[in-house]
C-alpha cells in the first residue's frame, strides 16, 4: 500500500493539488481530500472502460485503428479536431499539429463554455489575479452566474470563502459573499446576500452597477433588482479592500453572451479607480485553460482556428465546432477527450454520425457510440503525467498514480502515431 501525496485533481478548473491517493498493486484504494466528483473520477477510473480499439464496431489492433483514422483524416477536405480540454498540454499540442498537417480546424470546449469570455477579454482586457491572492486578500467575493457546489466543489474551502488568509485571518467572517443569479442555488445559501436577477437581465444590472460606482444614483429597479440594493452593492464594492467577481456560464450562455463579460470587465475596471478589484472565469474542464493557452502559443488564437489556407485564421461563429457541424461542413472529425454527441445541441451532434468520426476516450460515451473509429486511451492525471492550467492561468504538474488500464497508450502517444501515418499518406499522395 502506497500513499501518493500532493496529487493534482484532473477534473475541474480548481486543480486542487492536495489529494492523497492510496494505491495497492495497480488499484486506487482511496482518495483523501477529494470532493465527490474527484473521488468518483479516481475510484471509478477503471469502470466502463473501452476494452479495445474498434473500426465500425469491429475489434481491431491499435495499428489498424490508427491506420483507419489516418486514412479518414488524410483524405478529408475539411476535417475538424475537437475536444482537448480534458487532457494534458502535450496531447493538446498534437491536436493543433494534426489540424495543421490536415489543413483542418481545431476547436476546444471553450467554445461552449467560456468562449464568449475570451471574445470579451480580447476586446477589453482583463484584471486578473491568482487564487492564492484571493485566499489571502479578498474581503468581498461575488459569484455571478456561477454555482461552485455543483461544478467546483472545493472552491469555497480552498480559495474563496472559508480559508484563513494572510490579510483575512478571520476566514469566512472576514469576507462578505454575494451571489447574483436567476435562481437560488446552494451558493445563495452560503452567501451573505443573494441578488436575484431577471432572465437575460445581467447586462443591464452590470451596467447599472457601473454607473452607480461612477457616482450616478440609481433611482429605478433594474432587471428585477431594487434600486437601493444596486446603490448599496456599488458602495460595498468601492469600500472593499480587495474584491473579486467569479463568474460562470450564467453570463456566457444567456442573452448577451460576450457582451455580459464586456460590461463586467468595464465594471471591474471602474472599481480599480477606488480599490483593488479583479474577475476570474470559473473554468470547467480541468485543462480548458491549457487548451486555450497551448492553442494560443502555437497559432496565436485560443480556439476556433482554421488551417485551410495553410496558416491559422480565427473566427468564432464560423470555425467553432457547433456552427461547423450545424452547417454540415466537416467531412471528418477527430474527437479527443470530449463528448460532443452529448454536450452539443442534437442538430449539431447528428452530423458526427454522418461523417467518419474518430474518438479517443477512456469510457463509452454517446460520441464513441456513433464513431467509426474508437481508440481507448489512458487517463491524464491518473495514468499519465502531464501539465494542466488552473482557472487562474497557473500551470500545475499532473501525476501518474497507476499504470494505464489494460496497458493502453496516452492521448499523446496515439496522436503521434496518427500524425506519423497522416504525414506518410500525404507524402504518398
Amino acid at each position, binding site marked *: 500500500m502506497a500513499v501518493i501525496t500532493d496529487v493534482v485533481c484532473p477534473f475541474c478548473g480548481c486543480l486542487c493539488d492536495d489529494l492523497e491517493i492510496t494505491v495497492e498493486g495497480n488499484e486506487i484504494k482511496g482518495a483523501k481530500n477529494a470532493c465527490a466528483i474527484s473521488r468518483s473520477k479516481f475510484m471509478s477510473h477503471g469502470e466502463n472502460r473501452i476494452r479495445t480499439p474498434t473500426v465500425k464496431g469491429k475489434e481491431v489492433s491499435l495499428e489498424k485503428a490508427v491506420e483507419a483514422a489516418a486514412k479518414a483524416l488524410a483524405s478529408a477536405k475539411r476535417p475538424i479536431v475537437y475536444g482537448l480540454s480534458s487532457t494534458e498540454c502535450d496531447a493538446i499540442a498534437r491536436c493543433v499539429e494534426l489540424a495543421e498537417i490536415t489543413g483542418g480546424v481545431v476547436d476546444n470546449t471553450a*467554445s461552449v463554455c467560456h468562449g464568449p469570455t475570451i471574445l470579451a477579454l480580447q476586446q477589453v482586457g482583463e484584471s486578473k489575479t491568482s487564487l492564492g491572492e484571493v485566499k489571502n486578500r479578498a474581503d468581498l467575493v461575488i459569484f455571478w452566474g456561477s454555482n461552485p457546489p455543483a461544478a467546483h466543489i472545493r472552491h469555497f474551502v480552498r480559495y474563496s470563502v472559508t480559508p484563513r488568509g494572510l490579510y483575512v485571518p478571520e476566514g469566512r467572517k472576514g469576507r462578505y459573499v454575494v451571489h447574483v443569479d436567476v*435562481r437560488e442555488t446552494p451558493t445563495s445559501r452560503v452567501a451573505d446576500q443573494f441578488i436575484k436577477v431577471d432572465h437575460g437581465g445581467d447586462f443591464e444590472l452590470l451596467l447599472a452597477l457601473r454607473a452607480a460606482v461612477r457616482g450616478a444614483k440609481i433611482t429605478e429597479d433594474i432587471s428585477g433588482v431594487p434600486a437601493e440594493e444596486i446603490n448599496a452593492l456599488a458602495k460595498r464594492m468601492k469600500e472593499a479592500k480587495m474584491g473579486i467577481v467569479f463568474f460562470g456560464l450564467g453570463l456566457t450562455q444567456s442573452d448577451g453572451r460576450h457582451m455580459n463579460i464586456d460590461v463586467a470587465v468595464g465594471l471591474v475596471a471602474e472599481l480599480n479607480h477606488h480599490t483593488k478589484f479583479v474577475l476570474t472565469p470559473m473554468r470547467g474542464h480541468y485543462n480548458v485553460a491549457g487548451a486555450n493557452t497551448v492553442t494560443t502559443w502555437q497559432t496565436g488564437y485560443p480556439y476556433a482556428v482554421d488551417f485551410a489556407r495553410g496558416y491559422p485564421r480565427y473566427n468564432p*461563429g*464560423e470555425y467553432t465546432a457547433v*456552427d461547423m457541424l450545424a452547417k454540415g461542413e466537416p467531412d471528418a472529425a477527430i474527437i479527443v477527450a470530449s463528448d460532443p454527441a452529448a454536450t452539443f445541441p*442534437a442538430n*449539431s451532434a447528428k452530423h458526427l454520425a454522418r461523417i467518419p468520426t474518430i474518438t479517443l476516450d477512456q469510457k463509452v460515451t454517446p460520441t464513441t457510440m456513433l464513431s467509426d473509429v474508437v481508440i481507448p486511451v489512458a487517463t491524464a492525471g491518473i495514468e499519465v503525467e502531464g501539465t494542466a492550467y488552473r482557472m487562474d492561468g497557473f500551470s500545475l504538474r499532473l501525476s501518474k498514480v497507476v499504470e494505464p488500464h489494460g496497458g493502453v497508450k496516452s492521448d499523446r502517444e496515439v496522436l503521434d502515431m496518427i500524425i506519423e501515418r497522416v504525414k506518410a499518406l500525404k507524402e504518398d499522395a
Partner: protein
Amino acid sequence: MFVEKITVILISGRTSQQGVGLEVGKTSEEYFESVTYIELSTGDAGSLGVGDGDQVKVETAHGSVVVSAKLSDKLEPGTSFFPYGIWANQVFGSETGGTGMPHFKGIEAEISPSSAGVPSLADLVATLKGGS
C-alpha cells in the same frame, strides 16, 4: 382543474450528481439518474398536476424529450432547470449568433405531462444516427 401545459424559461447547467455520474461512466445508472430530469417549481408542478418523479414532455422550438419531473421549492414559478447532457440537448438549438455558443440558458419551453417514457442513451444515439 389542471392545465395541459405551461410555459417556462429553461436553463441548463451542471450538478454535482451529474459530475459524479459522468465519471462513473455515461452508460452507468448513476449518470442516467443524474441527467434525465427537469426541475420544476412546486407551483408549476401543481398547476400541471405533476408529482415528483412523474414524466413530463419538454418541448422547445428546437425539439422535445420526455424526462422525469423533480420538484423544487427553491425555484420560482416560470423557471425550470435541466442538467447538462444528451437529454437536455434534444431541446436546445445550434444557433450561436456568430459567437460559437448556443443559447443554453434562458430559452422558452413548454412542459406537459407525458407517459411516453424516458428515452435511453441508446435511443438518443440511434436518433442522432438516423437524424436527417
